[in-house]
């Protein structure tokens, strides 16, 4: 991912800032310019999403693209955030056998990828199993 492209998204990736539509009261992540439900009738504002959720679905990646091939096997999950939308993210620091639909998770700040040995490091949100 190019430097400016990643940099633009830092608040969303680092602090889980999403969108809230004052018209239909729905939250969205990633942030939106136009409310997908209300379209032009919507009124979108930034909102900090809750950092807790539960696993809605998951998979274990065993064949990965080059940027992630040192990390296999790793868990990718769809997580339903508390009072918020679904988000796709990795669940880290776990044994793959421990993941089940319905388990509670919480957000952590981790490295997502690197632009090779010399490029920038991309940080962002991942999740861990919450006790």
């Amino acid at each position, binding site marked *: *991912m190019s430097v400016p492209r990643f940099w633009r*998204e830092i608040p969303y990736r680092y602090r889980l800032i999403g969108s809230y539509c004052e018209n239909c009261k729905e939250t*969205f*992540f*990633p942030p939106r310019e136009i409310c*997908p439900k209300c379209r032009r009738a919507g009124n979108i504002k930034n909102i900090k999403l809750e950092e807790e959720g539960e696993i*809605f*679905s*998951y*998979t*274990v*990646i*065993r*064949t*990965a*693209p*080059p940027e*992630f*091939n040192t*990390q296999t096997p*790793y868990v*990718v*999950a*769809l997580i339903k955030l508390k009072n918020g*939308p*679904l*988000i*796709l*993210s*990795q669940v880290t620091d776990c044994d*793959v056998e421990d993941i089940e*639909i319905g388990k509670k998770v919480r957000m952590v700040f981790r490295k*997502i*990828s690197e632009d090779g040995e010399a490029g920038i490091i*991309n940080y*962002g949100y*991942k999740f861990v199993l919450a006790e």
Partner: protein
Amino acid sequence: MRKVAVIGVGMTKFGELWNSSLRSLTIEAGIKALNDAGIGGEEVDAIYTGCMSGDMFVKQGHIASLIADYGGMLPVPSTRVEAACASGGLALRQGFMAIASGMADIVVVGGVEKMTDSLGSQTTGYLALAADQEWEAFNGATFPSLYALMARRHMHEYGTTEEQLGLVAVKNHHNGSLNPNAHFQFDVSLEKVMNSSLVADPLRLFHCSPVSDGAACVILASEEKAKELSEDPVWIIGSGQASAAIGLYDREDICTIDSTVNAARTAYKMAGVTPKDIDFAEVHDCFTINEIISSEDLGFFKKGEGGKAVEEGLTSLDGEIPINPSGGLKAKGHPVGATGVAQAVEAVIQLRGKAGKRQVKDAEIGLTHNIGGSGGTAVIHIFSR
């Protein structure tokens, strides 16, 4: 709206075609189709080509011009169509609309993908272009992982089993063994499927369609031209297309692909038929779970019962509603941009009664279903004798 017919079809073999290039594949399929239609390039009014990513796989853009040029059809207007894995189906729809609207009388619709010139590790990344780059691929999701997430949830909500996922592959390999153009022409046992390596749990190698090279082509004609040129035209009686969220995380229900549901509704309405009237369907089994989910979304089975249907043999060649008589993407192969058009080729061959050992009995109405990405685009066509 004018009626639209298919008067010629052609395709290359699908597989790892080291001796073929993007250009040579397109020409091979195109010549076969033109010969089948009995026309020359000079009679063509427009060309539409589906190609997901010549830009990435072979670092070639501006394919539209390349195809018209190398196909010997200059100065015919040529358009490259892209909707990830639905590029072929979408190209077909563009051609259909050109004739239906009266803008063209004879249209060449092709689909092509040359995937094996790039390394396997690069291919994974290129295919993931169909997903949300910022919020899915960036976080480590691969394309198979998105369907794996759908599979896991479908198993959780409806009790679909890994065996049922595997039986789709078994059935499609059997059909593919009867298709001389298929990438894989051998049967596989359920045991072999269930023991193949995990790619993204629960999806295994044999639940995933392969990386293939190939091209397919159909010649479309207006009613007037069809009557003039063809003895056995096949009519496109319905066409539907719909969009859904590009990211899986933005879907209301990940066990349903609502672009399929919406596109199907449009197509059935235009054709004046219901799911019960369909005699066979070429369904987008990029991963076996998608054949199960789509068979439900297309209205063949109730939501959640697609797995059971495969188990009970309802979708076999001699079943109630044969699905993927060609072998599907799993066995026939999945050169991405070519798939949607290859599905149309199969539909036409079946309706002409020329499908040999894999012929569906009494085929009168067929359906093709082509999906882009994890369901962001769906294109459906209904064919009739």
